[in-house]
């Protein structure tokens, strides 16, 4: 990408809130039910129905607002956004327009660009507001007709809008990932991107490097994975730069990302943009949030990821990158703390969780809540390595045994399978003597200057002890005897 250009990116994220019922009706919000079975008379917009605000949705918004250090508006207004669409039952969407409930705030996150040093970035948030989702139009299954499923109509959403402060697709993705982790950490959103619980729209523009004025922005919709977000932004930045360099002009429009073709295509231009005729919804009173309500929610908030990151570095002496990785989710962080509190080697606990545990979770595609190895056993495992009972190699094998649920007690397996590390110097010397006697050629190679030959001898000795020899001791004894 040409360095003569700077890209400017802002994200609008819709997080579906984890409430049991809809934002203005008592219907359930669960995903995947048979079409229109979770649409109440309010969701269907039958004549005579009225909305009643779900306080649970407001609490989610307040939780989020506190977590990003935003101002919670003491009085915010629900407005009607008017447009006609078959899956918009009322002919308007209830949203917040002029006065949103969450105003301002910031989000800080680590960025790891493909070609550079990792760094931290802080982006300001413009606002976050409450609104209802629309239903779904189903065009495929009905020949010549469209089906309408209103189960999703009225589902509560928090639309989180960032300032246009991201400068690369890597920053945009890092922002989105951190936001994703945060809303799940706060238990305000399940973060399920396949089901559309967390979806992003990106506003992208480019300008000559060093310029102050913004270029014309393009909004890209339909970005339901981090990979698509990255690809779509990169594609769009390229498209805009090429367009301008070829003497063209970017037009303000909304484009839809097509992941199959890795392309964006125009949905509508600014000229066709609807006039939504926003006005305050007369069916709903202004939303009033008292300082007492905010404080009550603040008191119930879990420790936030930023604060926890700092505490982990402070209390456990972990590097910042480790603390960031371990606070990727609240459950992972809790798992780490349970393990770390039971062992003396905190760094070992971090390494195990970022290494073996994370790899196994990824391989099985399960979350840490479903981890088959209890924190208590992992702690024992780490302690047994630390006190020399077993070596690291044995520990990893033993971890696999626990993961496969073939056993549930580290000590019992060590005992039963005789996995105890051989740290008895006399025993190791005896084995080393045997190995040296049996492999005169390898010994000669080593003595002839071939350092690598030592590894073969270590391997032979390990094999003879079925992997149980203390590796440091073994090395030491071998070198001594070969010297």
């Amino acid at each position, binding site marked *: 990408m040409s360095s003569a250009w700077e890209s400017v990116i802002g994200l609008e994220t819709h997080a579906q809130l984890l409430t049991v019922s809809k934002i203005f009706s008592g219907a359930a919000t669960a995903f995947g039910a048979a079409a229109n079975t979770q649409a109440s*008379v309010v969701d269907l*917009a039958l*004549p*005579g129905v*009225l909305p009643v605000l779900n306080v649970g949705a407001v609490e989610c918004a307040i939780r989020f607002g506190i977590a990003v250090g935003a101002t919670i508006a003491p009085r915010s207004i629900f407005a009607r956004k008017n447009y006609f669409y078959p899956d918009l039952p009322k002919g308007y969407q209830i949203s917040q327009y002029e006065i949103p409930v969450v105003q301002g705030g910031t989000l800080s996150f680590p960025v790891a660009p493909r070609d550079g040093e990792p760094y931290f970035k802080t982006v300001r948030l413009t606002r976050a507001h409450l609104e209802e989702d629309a239903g779904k139009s189903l065009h495929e299954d009905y020949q010549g007709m469209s089906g*309408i499923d209103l189960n999703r109509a009225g589902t509560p959403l928090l639309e989180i809008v960032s300032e246009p402060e991201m400068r690369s697709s890597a920053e945009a993705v890092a922002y989105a990932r951190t936001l994703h982790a945060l809303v799940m950490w706060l238990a305000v959103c399940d973060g399920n991107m396949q089901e559309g619980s967390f979806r992003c729209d990106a506003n992208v523009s480019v300008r000559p490097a060093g310029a102050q004025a913004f270029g014309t922005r393009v909004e890209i919709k339909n970005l339901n994975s981090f990979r698509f977000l990255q690809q779509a932004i990169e594609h769009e930045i390229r498209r805009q730069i090429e367009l301008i360099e070829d003497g063209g002009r970017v037009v303000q429009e909304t484009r839809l990302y097509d992941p199959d073709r890795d392309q964006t295509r125009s949905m509508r231009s600014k000229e066709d943009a609807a006039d939504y*005729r926003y*006005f305050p919804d007369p*069916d*709903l009173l202004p939303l009033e949030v008292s300082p007492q309500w905010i404080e009550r929610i603040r008191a119930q908030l879990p420790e936030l990821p930023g604060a926890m990151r700092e505490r982990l570095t402070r209390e456990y002496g972990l590097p910042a990158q480790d603390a960031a990785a371990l606070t990727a989710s609240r459950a992972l962080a809790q798992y780490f703390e349970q393990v770390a509190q039971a062992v003396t080697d905190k760094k070992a606990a971090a390494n195990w969780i970022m290494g073996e545990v994370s790899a196994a979770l990824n391989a099985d595609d399960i979350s840490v809540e479903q981890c088959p190895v209890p924190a208590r056993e992992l702690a024992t495992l780490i302690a047994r390595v630390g006190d020399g009972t077993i070596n690291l190699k044995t520990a990893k094998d033993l971890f696999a045994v626990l993961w496969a649920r073939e056993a549930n007690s580290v000590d019992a397996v060590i005992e039963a399978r005789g996995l105890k590390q051989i740290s008895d110097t006399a025993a190791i010397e005896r084995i080393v003597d045997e190995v040296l006697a049996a492999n005169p050629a390898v010994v000669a190679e080593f003595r002839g200057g071939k350092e690598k030959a030592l590894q073969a001898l270590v391997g032979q000795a390990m094999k003879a002890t079925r992997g149980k020899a203390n590796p440091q001791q073994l090395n030491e004894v071998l070198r001594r005897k070969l010297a």
Partner: protein
Amino acid sequence: MRRPNATACSLCRGWSNERAREGGAVSELAHATLAQLGGMLDRRKVSAVELATHFLERIGRHRDLNAFLDVRPEQTLAQARAADARRARGEASALLGVPIAHKDVFVTRDWHTTASSRILEGYQSPFDATVVQALAQAGMVCLGKLNCDEFAMGSSNENSAYGNVLNPWDRGAVPGGSSGGSAAAVAARLAPIATATDTGGSIREPAAFSGVTGTKPTYGRPSRWGMIAFASSLDTAGLLTVSAQDCALAFNAMLGFDPKDSTSVDRPREDYTRSLEIDLRGLRIGVPTEFFAAGLEAEVEAAVRAALRQYEALGAQLVDVSLPNAALGIPVYYVVASAEASSNLSRFDGVRYGLRAKQYDDLLDMMRKTRAQGFGAEVKRRVLIGTYVLSHGYYDAYFLQASRVRRIIAEEFQRAFSRCDLIAGPVTSGVAFGFGEKSADPVAMYLADLYTVPSSLAGIPAMSIPCGFGRGNRPIGLQLMANHFDEARLLGVAHRYQCVTDWHARVPAGF
């Protein structure tokens, strides 16, 4: 014109089923007050089934008024039988077994609900409006659904998709609107009481034109759940009754907090009959000078002034008050109400219920054609006005400005109420006009709401009570307005007037 017997005793004395069948005392039953009907039911002088049958028969006999849109005797009689059974079990609520009819903007499970629009022809609601449900819970028996202006938009009932309602006093005159069917039904005693809605005068203007008592409570007092929305910030359910006393009795059952309506006010229930015997000595009645300016017809002014003198005779004191911006109420109202209506009526798109155009090219075309075919001219006009005033670039000049003036008008009422307890004036500038007289001139029609709109914008309770007759023997109404939540006193003040006058008790000839 005939005066009915004035007391409860004379009404119930000697009345029997046999005589009812002969028709001799039938009208006496129809002309009884709610309290009298309740008393007769209580003493088993009449059953709820007999009462319902009686009113159904009158409804059938006076079909030419076109007051009713949907009558289902089997549903009515089922409710009446249930009421009789409740009474037989020892229940003794004041309204148990008393008939009522509902304006067609209240959704009902057992009757169609159309809001007098083609777009909802044959629509059956899966639930009852809270107001309907509350009155049914008190034991009131529904006689059917009443004609009105389409989506309650109009002042003459000429905007109904199902035809004009005739004024029982003069079939050549409009009954008023939008609750024209409710007013005509009560005036003709086809129902002893009827629900109605008032957005800018839709209860009070037809009450004045049809010579009945019409009461709009404080906005937020009655539930709007199940009331098809016209202008949500103004729509208020109320009643058309023969007397203020009847209204007070039914308000006890009808008004209360409803968690299904966010704009419903969470206040304890009250007894609206508690102030009926109010002493008027020392009561200060404010007379807004602006309501007696040019445009008010002499015969209306004379009747209203006579009513005010009557109040003075009862001990009240008249004080001049001013509502300087009341006249701006009309433009403010037609901006605010139309804006809300344009959005409220968006749901009628042919997708989920109601009319769907037969022929169309695609989805948008289906919606366009459905709305073009389903809405009448006045509804379209207001949707257009509302869409315009909310549009980008016009919002500040129209909607926002109107909202500001609305607040100013509400503040002027508060200033006036600092000097008086109640405000009185005319309801309309003239008596009921003839069919077609104003329908060609929307602005002239809109001006019919001149005196009723300000109190709607302020959200205060207001009523119209009969106070005389003008040319062609057409009724004249007196408007009484009170401060927020002061319904009990408002009804008491109206009742005292009705104790010493009989305008409200008069029945048009032939009914």
